[in-house]
């Protein structure tokens, strides 16, 4: 049996463990949250190193992609470098392949995404593949990176401006303490009421709300009108939360295991264990081939 563990800076309330089978092999897949405690995450990674088949890093990004440019998040890199033996991934490789594929499936097979659809992406530099794929099919995009990460009420509407601003900011923002830019630990269980009120319009104007679930959740107002939520890392409680806010459908880019969808870091770690190759040697096409063999499909849940 192979063991895959995701160590997350997120809330321990979301911890989860499942047994499953991938291509005939048994897997134990677990997620362990450290409630935003960076040092606890470091210790846990060192404890697991060499004892499990692959590790995912959750609640933090290590690499952010803007087209061909890659920016390393300093805090994420520190966590990754604490692991010396076991392969460790942050999900960015899978995001760039799986999430493009999900957009293709949603546009081609479901009607949930179509040309002209108004999409709010709460954060796009952590999901550049998804952002690019939706822009390519002609969605009417609002990229909320400045709004939700920095509190600046400036919606970005084009890939060109997104790239320009990202390339200007990311070389320095990636050096800042991660908790200043992204909700970690207990912040993931609460909402920022002032910003919910301030930014309500962006949610209500959209037909599809996409991106990181913790950001979506933290700023989501009540009174949605059946919007589709495209994300992952959702639990049963999250589904109840989305229903209570009036969302109409939930699409998760990773499959459901035991009532929840794991983060892409967990799934990428599992794929890594299946492939048994060093992360650096795996190509996007290998991920895609494996995803097809595993019959990975987005989960679509009408709420």
């Amino acid at each position, binding site marked *: 049996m192979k063991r895959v563990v995701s160590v997350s800076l997120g809330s321990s309330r979301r911890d989860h463990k499942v047994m499953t089978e991938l291509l005939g092999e048994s897997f134990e897949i677990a997620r362990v949250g450290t409630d935003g405690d960076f040092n606890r995450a470091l210790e846990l990674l060192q404890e697991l190193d060499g004892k499990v088949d692959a590790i995912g890093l959750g609640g933090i990004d290590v690499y952010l992609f803007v087209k061909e440019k890659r920016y390393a998040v300093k805090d994420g890199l520190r966590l990754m470098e604490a692991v010396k033996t076991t392969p460790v991934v942050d999900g960015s490789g899978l995001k760039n392949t799986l999430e493009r594929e999900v957009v293709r499936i949603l546009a081609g097979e479901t009607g949930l995404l179509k040309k002209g659809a108004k999409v709010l992406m709460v954060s796009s530099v952590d999901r550049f593949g998804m952002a690019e794929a939706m822009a390519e099919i002609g969605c009417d995009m609002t990229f909320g990176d*400045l709004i939700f*990460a*920095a*509190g*600046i*009420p*400036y919606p970005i509407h084009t890939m060109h401006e997104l790239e320009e*601003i990202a*390339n*200007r*900011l990311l*070389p*320095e*923002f990636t*050096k*800042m*303490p991660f908790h*200043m*830019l992204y909700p970690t630990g207990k912040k993931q269980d609460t909402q920022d009421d002032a910003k919910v009120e301030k930014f309500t319009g962006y949610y209500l104007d959209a037909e599809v709300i996409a991106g990181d679930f913790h950001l979506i959740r933290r700023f989501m107002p009540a009174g949605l009108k059946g919007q589709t939520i495209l994300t992952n890392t959702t639990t049963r409680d999250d589904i109840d939360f989305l229903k209570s806010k009036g969302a109409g459908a939930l699409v998760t880019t990773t499959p459901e295991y035991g009532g929840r969808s794991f983060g892409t870091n967990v799934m990428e770690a599992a794929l890594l264990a299946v492939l048994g190759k060093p992360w650096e040697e795996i190509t996007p096409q290998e991920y895609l081939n494996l995803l097809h063999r595993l019959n990975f499909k987005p989960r679509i849940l009408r709420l």
Partner: protein
Amino acid sequence: MATHDELTESLKAFTDSYNKNERLKVMNRDWNRVVVVKANDIESLHTLTVQDGVVSIREGASDPPDLTVISDSETLADMFYGDITPTEPYNNGTLRIMGSEDDIVRLDFISLMIWGE
């Protein structure tokens, strides 16, 4: 060590660059703040005021500011001239900023939008 006059010039350069950037003014229309800039190695105090997206500068302190930026005069002058970014001095403790975390991120953002790559 920079002089008070050099620090004043660096803040003028920062203010001019900011106010020429129409997009930045739109981005900060909602952010009315008073920022005091204080050197800790020479006698030098300045106040930057952001009002309806426009920045103005004057010598002397303001009470009470929303943000207080404290560092040595050389670091402050380098930062406001855009020769260095605030991130490294902030992370290594050379630069202290007192205020809310959201406001600190916003100030860093403004600096990068003016001088960033």
